């Protein structure tokens, strides 16, 4: 979490937040956040509504001044540097295209404002429009474009000024699922090709995990966890992180040491290096599988829980089954096609491997 390296090693277009904080009245919008985005890195910021994601972005872009701490771009402090001098490209949730300008004029706007020579503006705009697949709509007005098309133009417009950093604030959340899925990978492709340092805000953890180099999870204005997607997925640092990343089964009990965890009087096996004491065990729904009938023989490395089905939800490729064990309700995800249909009241034996349990 505190991997703020010295600015010298981090190359010229990285972003660093050093102990940054911002209060609104008595609301701590952002509190003491330190993190470094390396040059060319794609960092996603996720977290529940109101956790300070937008405020953090606006401090990087310069529209909000931090109360404490420092924002650095390319190693240089941004204190006193106005937004228009920061060379930061922004993509907004509502696209924010200029409605009175054509697609071409929107893309050319920043280059004109920075007084680029006319022919260079033309070439660059054409190249950008081609990159986002909108070259044949240069003369259209934003109101004649779909949401997805508008967001492509917004991306091209932000990249036109060759910014040092690209900031995106929930750019896809106003779009429908299908467009969202194609556009997220397109953003990723464009980001990788241009090698631009990117901070991407989203409340969709799946989106963040699928396109980011690293993910920062925020909670109440503070940084809760920072890591590569696989790390966040496999070893959430807290119950909050686990819950946000989509672990739905949290079992509270006592860790006895030696790989044994006692939950509701049952002994479960777990792989961990932590010290004995009260703990929470997390198991992802997709890690459960139905077990063969037979005696409950908890061999090391495999845990079996006996309970009853209380309900199920069809989720397309998966079916999510809720079952109760000693009064606690757990969730199991099954491939929809597989196995005999379960219904409420049926007895159920669920197994999971010790390696798939994560202890906090």
């Amino acid at each position, binding site marked *: 979490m505190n991997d703020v390296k010295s600015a010298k090693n981090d190359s010229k277009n990285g972003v660093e937040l050093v102990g940054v904080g911002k209060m609104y009245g008595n609301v701590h919008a952002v509190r003491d956040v330190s993190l470094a985005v390396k040059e060319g890195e794609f960092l996603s910021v996720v977290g529940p509504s109101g956790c300070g994601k937008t405020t953090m972005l606006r401090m990087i872009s310069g529209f909000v001044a931090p109360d404490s701490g420092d924002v650095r771009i390319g190693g240089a402090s941004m204190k006193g540097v106005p937004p228009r001098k920061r060379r930061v490209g922004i993509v907004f949730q509502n696209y924010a295209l200029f409605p009175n300008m054509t697609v071409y004029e929107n893309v050319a706007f920043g280059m004109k404002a920075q007084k680029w020579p006319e022919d260079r503006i033309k070439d660059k705009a054409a190249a950008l429009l081609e990159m986002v697949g909108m070259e044949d709509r240069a003369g259209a007005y934003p109101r004649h474009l779909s949401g997805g098309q508008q967001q492509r133009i917004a991306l091209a417009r*932000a990249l036109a000024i060759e910014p040092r950093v690209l900031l995106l604030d929930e750019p896809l959340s106003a779009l429908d699922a299908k467009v969202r899925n194609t556009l997220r990978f397109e953003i990723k492709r464009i980001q990788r090709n241009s090698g631009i340092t990117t901070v991407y805000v989203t409340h969709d953890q799946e989106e963040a995990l699928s396109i980011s180099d690293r993910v920062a999870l925020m909670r109440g204005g503070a940084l809760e966890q920072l890591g590569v997607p696989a790390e966040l997925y496999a070893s959430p640092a807290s119950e909050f992180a686990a819950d946000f990343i989509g672990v739905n089964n949290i079992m509270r009990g006592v860790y006895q040491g030696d790989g044994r965890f006692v939950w509701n009087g049952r002994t479960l096996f777990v792989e961990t290096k932590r010290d004995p004491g009260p703990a929470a065990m997390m198991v992802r729904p997709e890690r459960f599988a139905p077990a063969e009938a037979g005696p409950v023989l908890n061999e090391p490395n495999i845990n079996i829980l006996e309970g009853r089905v209380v309900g199920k939800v069809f989720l397309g490729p998966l079916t999510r089954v809720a079952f109760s064990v000693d009064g606690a309700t757990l969730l199991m995800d099954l491939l929809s096609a597989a196995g005999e249909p379960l219904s409420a009241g049926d007895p159920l034996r669920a197994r999971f491997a010790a390696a798939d349990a994560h202890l906090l």
Partner: protein
Amino acid sequence: MLLPVTAVLVAFLGWPLLLVLWESLFVGGGLSHGNYASLFTRSLYRESFFTSLALSVSTAFLGTVIGLPLSYAIHRSGRHKGFLMALTSVPLTFSGLVVGFAFIVLLGTSGFFTLLLKRFVDINPLEFSAFLFTWRGLVVAYLYFLVPRMILTMTVAWSNADWSLMEAATSLGAGGGTVFFRVLLPMLGPAILSGSSLLFAVSMGAFGTAFALTGSAVKILPMVIYTQVSDMSSDIAQADALAIILTVTTTLVIMVYERTFREVK
């Protein structure tokens, strides 16, 4: 939905207008366009027509320029906003006559401010307040009830404004001037258009304030119409023709104006 609206428009706008138009076409019992031709032949009508235009264009322009920053200030005034909005609406509840007399009481020859000013500076009250009784004085008096109209129109526009447009422009490197003229003004354009059109239309038809301030000394079109109706030598048909001219001119000017600026945008 369309039918009742049409019915109301016909009953309260179309039909009376048609009656006025019909009446205006009779001179001495016979059909004639004479009442319209007199706009060109009689200098009183011609001058009052142009005075009304000058007055209305000036008030619409000044009212817009003054109302715009004020509306922004009120929009940004935080918890005082409700109070300031209420205060803004007060002038709208006064009849034109009241506004006219208020100006006389404050700025007239023996008005409060005139006398106050006379104590400190050597002015001639007569010369000082003479201004009030010309068409330029009317501009000032009209602004008193026109600026609030502009503010009310604009505060709605400010609260619907999309500030991310300004942030987008700024982050792209645009300076204050570019943001103002290329982004902010076009965004507020529709509201400014309808606001200033409203001011123009209201000043073209306003009457009470001018009547209270100048009697019938400043010849504006509504005043001339009034004298045609009320004088001993009343000429209803002539008044009707002038009313039609007033209505048509106002409508035409607004249509051309809005069309022009929609295109530019």
